[in-house]
């Protein structure tokens, strides 16, 4: 199964880790550096799932999710939030912003793949 994923994170290291985890599994991975960048990349693609960081310059993860959900063609796209905090408060915020689920950094590549495969049906 070839899934298309958009990964939004301002850390090049994390973006690289995601690519390393997903590309060998046959995923097509688009990356973006922050929320604004993410929206512009999203403009030309229809990802099966989106992974996003929260703390980012220009437009943070919450704002990004809001903007994605506001687009009719992405309102049901699964969005996974990458977070270093395992705090319930953070999850609630992500959820109320419209995130589908979350992955705690540092992530286990296998679990990330599983989660994405599950979300994308």
């Amino acid at each position, binding site marked *: 199964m070839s899934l298309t994923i958009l990964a939004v994170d301002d850390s090049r290291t994390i*973006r690289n880790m995601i690519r390393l985890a997903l590309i060998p599994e046959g995923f097509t991975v688009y990356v973006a550096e922050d929320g604004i960048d993410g929206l512009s990349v999203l403009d030309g693609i229809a990802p099966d799932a989106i992974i996003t960081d929260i703390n980012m310059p220009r437009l943070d993860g919450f704002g990004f999710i809001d903007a994605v959900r506001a687009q009719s063609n992405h309102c*049901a796209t699964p969005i996974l939030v990458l977070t270093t905090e395992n705090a319930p408060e953070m999850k609630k915020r992500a959820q109320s912003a419209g995130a589908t*689920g979350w992955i705690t950094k540092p992530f286990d590549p296998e*679990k990330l793949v599983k989660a994405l495969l599950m979300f994308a049906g």
Partner: protein
Amino acid sequence: MSDPIDPMAEIRASFFVECEELLEALQDGLTELENGDGDPETINVVFRAVHSIKGGAGAFGLEPLVRFAHRYETVLEEVRAHRLAPVGDAIRLFFEAADHLSDLVRACRDDLPTPEASSDALLAELDALLADPEPEETKPVDSPPLGVAIDLPDLDPVEEPKVAAPLPVPPDNMALPFPHWLIRFRPESELYKTGNEPLLLLRQLAQLGECHVDCDITALPALTDLKPEQPYLNWTIQLDGGLDEADIRDVFEFVDGLCDLQIDRVDGPENLPPPGSAAPTLAPKIVDLPRAAPSPPATEVPLATVPHHPDRIDEPHKSSTGATAKSVVRVDLERIERLVNLIGELVINQAMLAQSLDSVDLSPHSDAMNGLEEFQRLTRDIQDSVIMIRAQPVKPLFQRMSRIVREASSAVGKEVRLITEGETTEIDKTVIERLTDPLTHMIRNAIDHGFEDAPTRQAAGKPSEGQLRLSAAHRSGRVVIEVSDDGGGINRARVHQIAVEKGLIPVEAVLSDSEIDNLLFLPGLSTAAKSTDLSGRGVGMDVVRTAIQALGGRISIASEQGKGTAFTLSLPLTLAVLDGMVINVAGETLVLPLNVVIESLSLSHDDVQMLRPGAFLVRVRGDFVPLYDLGAMLGYRAARTDYNQSNALLISLDDDTRAALLIDGIEDQRQVVIKGLDDSFYRAPGIAAATILGDGQIALIIDPGDIIAGSTCPRSTDPGLPEKRARYG
């Protein structure tokens, strides 16, 4: 070097590169906060820098780094939340923590032991800033427990619940034996809004163990009244009683709070729990999940099916929207080296072409000659541009110095403020790297010896806080870096006295101010009344000067009593190109670095005097300097016996050693591209490197210091003359 095949090692390496950038942003942000000229985004930048380092460090299991960054970040979060002001002790601690973070990053990068003790001490100080310190951190959970599996066979999500309905099974006819789990699940509209999907949850449950699902469709209105955003369905699920409740709850982790969920353990038919408000189970239809699962109407949103082109998924991803940061391409240094080499060849080829065109006697106005001229100009431009690729701003170097200033000034209890100018000035990467040590030393020196203590400063009518200025600028093809303080200036009487005491100058020597100042560059001269931790370790300005010279640079000093001292470094833009004098010696073409050449001399009998056989002196305006016969020293021919009408070059090294080199002629004066010599099986004495001339021949570049030190000629004359330090001796 990391194994190029291991992508993880590459990412790790790039993580540390990214860390350096983040640390730079952190420094910048803190400086803005300290100066009070930041905007609301500044603290976010600072926070994110630490946060990103933590995130990446976690990925590589760099625990000490994660631990420190996490708690540093916790304190910064307080600033972000306006509960802590970044002033006074707080900002000082933030700087210290940034310095420490950078130590940790480098220790992790180089696999060195991390300084845990100082981490703990700093963390304790940071925690003290928090009114209500965070309890010892709640360990971040490795990863969410996603016990996920997928791809149930024969699953057809399009199958409508109504189609699946004609299996009227009474609700109490439970399909699973007791005990089992009874799960009542009613999604709210938020569940769909977050992109969650009951079908997927049900699949996960089915994956856990034997599972019967029935879907209640009674709330489903007629198709015409159906609002796709509204949740109409709810489910009752029976699940294998042997399962752990935690595993079941995990499945619903992401939808917690977005649905009514009731999970009960049923031991027998008599203790069926009453349905909570959540799940009014009216006439549920039992469906064997593997055959069909109901699809909630709300979620079927067609995804755009436009074929997409993952054009460039390689880093760096360029942001298409206007970013404030300069866009930067990361290139392997080796590739640049290769380009520099190729351009070097191009320059050489162009020179060869010019020579051959010259030999056919074309008119200077011919197309060929005009074209050649243009070609030469372009080649030069390309060469300059390529050299600039290796250039980097001095900013990171200056940032490192600001740390040195903080540490050194607090060590000696002086207040010193660093002012930097020209941080964007660019200079060759290698030059920058090799400037760190000499600059560090100069700054420590200035703080240690340059600045008076606060009472003395006040008595002199100066602010008690000293000012250390570090500036960089491009000046006539070179980079000039200046380190200046507003301290007391050089105590010349003291310097003179020490130089006499140490036998560096004769007692009766009368020296000008600038000559005294230059004594500071002599080995073994230290003026500190008391030896301090910082600079009293016998490393003197002579070491600094040697390092600067090794870069092809010069250092000079200027000092005014009571006003301060300034050191000026003049450095070449690059180490790849040398301003050279092309000379001829015994039929060989050689290159001498132009910066050592003072003048050319035409010798006559009278100018040269024999000190002893094989050792000669030449008189240059009343002074005697040793004369070295280059051709003989390099073994190209026997030593000359008659110096009449011969040519020599007067050279001066930066330590003021002067000498005359006997040569046969000067051919040219120009820039040459430096080529390293492979010295794996032979290193020639007196030779620094090589270059390729226009005719394709290799010319050796002379190392004048090596020639004068006499290491070239182990078998012949002994050039170890006593005039090593002619001016003072």
